[in-house]
């Protein structure tokens, strides 16, 4: 949770470009805070749901939508799942939000665990929207990849299941698993957090060590990647500047290099100077990590600027995001969208006199609320997501009309 004095920066593919409009370029952008600052973000590919002091807000190109009464979001390009105090509900994107595609009432109880976790199971941002978990599995958090699921248990154990063709389950094979299965290789080490990308997985131990496994096709595991090495070799032949190809600070000896395309067992990752990792997040094909010293490191696929180094190079070794250092910003948390990296930063004590460094969110200055003009083909304001029912949940929730 971001405290007062924090703000969020985003690198990578913009919501404008996702709508086919010209993008704002490779530099970092600051999220317009809205009332009371932004506390949490849940990014999808073409939009992002943010939590402001006034509640949830859905932001896409040129458009904002208040999501009154809802507390948490699980977005995808086909649907958005929202969770409130008494219910979770899913709506279909792009088809008019008049009626929900799915609802589930939630029993009132102690502080809920974060989405996708729900009582008894977890939510999915696509049909069937809900899957039960085995009764004995006590979950602290859960992360969804493209084909797999990671679960962090209350005891610091990690379970993985789903598609395993790219080694993303960490069981040492390329087989898929239908049911949650303990990642044995991590069994001795209590974990504090897990993150799932498109086809890769990450886990941070309580001691601040980072483990990764899965597909390394763009260097997202920070293991030597053949395709990137070949690109670098080509670039050197062509005389291109080395900066564009993000070489590792200490490139491994060419003869000794074994390239890894798939890492089917967790591997310990060493960041430069070996700091303690406090948080990690995975996009489709990249990874971002925040250290206890307030630094942000990124690696993997960088074609849309999501690594935050101001270029479009991919990298198979972790690189510190220098923009934060240059601005004296302390990274507190990181959340990745498919092709983006959102970082929560604490402002320096003397903020810069202008905000010229970060381009403003283009939607800043337009009025908030559901009466924004809609993009062509989109719904009118009557598609605003109905507020969460306040009354006691009834058997068979009625679907609200817009």
């Amino acid at each position, binding site marked *: 949770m971001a405290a007062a004095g924090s703000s969020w920066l985003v690198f990578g593919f913009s919501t404008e470009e996702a709508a086919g409009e010209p993008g704002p370029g490779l530099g970092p952008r600051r999220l317009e805070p809205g009332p009371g600052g932004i506390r949490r973000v849940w990014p999808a590919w073409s939009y992002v749901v943010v939590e402001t002091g006034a509640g949830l807000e859905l932001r896409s190109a040129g458009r904002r939508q208040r999501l009154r009464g809802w507390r948490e979001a699980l977005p995808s390009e086909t649907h958005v799942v929202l969770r409130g105090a008494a219910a979770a509900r899913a709506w279909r994107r792009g088809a008019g939000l008049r009626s929900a595609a799915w609802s589930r009432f939630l029993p009132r109880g102690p502080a809920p665990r974060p989405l996708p976790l729900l009582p008894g199971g977890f939510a999915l941002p696509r049909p069937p929207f809900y899957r039960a978990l085995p009764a004995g599995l006590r979950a602290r958090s859960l992360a969804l990849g493209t084909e797999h699921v990671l679960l962090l248990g209350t005891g610091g154990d990690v379970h993985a299941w789903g598609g395993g063709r790219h080694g993303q389950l960490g069981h040492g094979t390329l087989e898929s698993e239908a049911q949650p299965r303990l990642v044995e290789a991590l069994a001795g080490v209590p974990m504090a957090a897990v993150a799932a990308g498109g086809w890769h997985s990450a886990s941070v131990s309580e001691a601040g060590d980072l483990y990764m496994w899965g597909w390394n096709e763009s260097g997202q595991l920070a293991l030597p990647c*053949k395709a990137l090495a070949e690109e670098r070799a080509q670039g050197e032949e062509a005389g291109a500047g080395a900066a564009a190809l993000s070489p590792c600070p200490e490139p491994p000896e060419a003869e000794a290099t074994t390239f890894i*395309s798939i890492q089917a067992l967790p591997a310990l990752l060493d960041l430069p100077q070996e700091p303690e990792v406090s948080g990690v997040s995975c996009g489709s094909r990249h990874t971002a990590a925040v250290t206890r010293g307030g630094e942000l490191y990124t690696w993997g696929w960088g074609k849309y600027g999501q690594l935050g180094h101001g270029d479009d190079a991919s990298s198979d070794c972790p690189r510190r995001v220098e923009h934060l250092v240059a601005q004296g910003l302390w990274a507190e948390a990181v959340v990745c969208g498919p092709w983006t990296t959102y970082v929560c930063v604490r402002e320096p004590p003397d903020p810069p006199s202008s905000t010229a460094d970060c381009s403003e969110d283009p939607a800043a200055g337009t009025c908030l609320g559901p009466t924004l003009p809609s993009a062509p083909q989109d719904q009118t304001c009557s598609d605003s997501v109905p507020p969460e029912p306040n009354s006691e949940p009834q058997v068979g929730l009625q679907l609200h009309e817009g």
Partner: protein
Amino acid sequence: MAAPVGAEAPAAGPGALWAEVRALLPGTEGEFTLALSGEVDPCVRPLLRRARGLLYGAEGPAGGEAAALRRLGHVLRDYSWEKLNAGPWQEVSKAWRQVYTYGCLFGALAEISAGCPPVSAVRLCDMGLLMGASVLDNVLGRLVRVLQQHLPRERRGAAGLAAEVRPEGPGPPPRRPLLPSSPPGPGRGSAGPLPAAAGPEPLLQKARPEPRPAPAVRPEEELPRLRCPSLESFRDKHLIPQKPVVLEGIMDHWPCMRKWSVDYICQVAGCRTVPVELGSRYTDEEWSQKLMTVDDFIGQYIVNEKSMGYLAQHQLFDQIPELKEDISIPDYCCLGEGEEEHITINAWFGPEGTISPLHQDPQQNFLAQVFGRKYIRLYSPQDSENLYPHESQILHNTSQVDVENPDLVKFPNFRKAAFQSCVLMPGQVLFIPVKYWHYVRSLDVSFSVSFWWS
């Protein structure tokens, strides 16, 4: 027809190329329907429409619009690529493959309108042909044909383009494991040694083993040979009883027998991008797949033979229709139940020493040998237990035994398995009944064409 020395193309310059290319597209924006064979995420269609709008806007996308079109091509390809990799290749929806094709089309058109050399557009067309699904009446196939005519005569030196790797041949039938990652896209075997760069001799390149002599085929093991049997005779004596046989004479009139050579393949298909298998055999840990042009494949793996590369199990004739005209479908395929369109035709082109480990396929197979010789050993499915198939689901159709160097301590029953063998010569066609175990090693630079039918 000799082109003037140093000429770019038969026609005059990029303007003529753009006009020819533009003529392949529907006349008006309204006729360019962007039809898809199913549902896709709502974010996709606005991008497709925007790209189409750029095409039909001003006088060909020029200047800034070419850049915007190129960018949209990238976004569409990258977005749909993730869908293409989101599950088993067989389950990927046709609609997403069509989106990928549009991404390749818009990208190729952007390259052409920006005046880039046609090879980059050819490569994009090939990516769409390999991984996409036809749109606009196979526009990519039609486009690549036009582009090939505009390539300079001197096409060598494409080594720089070869390295853009997003390997993995497209799928089924999963004879060669589609793993580590099934459809085309980045990804290879779990680990691999540093690859050889094209160019000077790499010191530490994994050396190819010494070529092995042609194995002796004992008379009692030798497969029977038949010259042009009648349909009934083949059906009654071989198809129904499921007995393998070498057929002679049926390829005699195929144009490939007099036309094909390594040079000819290079001329017709040199600039085209194909999936190549690297590594001794697909059961090895260092085995991987890589996309490269035919020129580069021939230069690095046929002519130089620094390490093992095999253009294997690739539907080359769908990609390059000109080559399809040089072959025919064996008449005996009409004895099957399936339609002719469902017959899968694969090309197998490689240096001496390529090995396909002992495995079985789920369909009948005619293996036609065009040039070079192959040593082939066959085991009946009844002997399956003695052949120790792999346990894993991916390799379940493959034996663990190295046929020409079996570990009889680990696999003692292998010696009990009876086999037949042959050296398949140019002009011969081997009938491999469904699920018949077969092991293949090339004895020369070899080109085979296989027909999988039911």
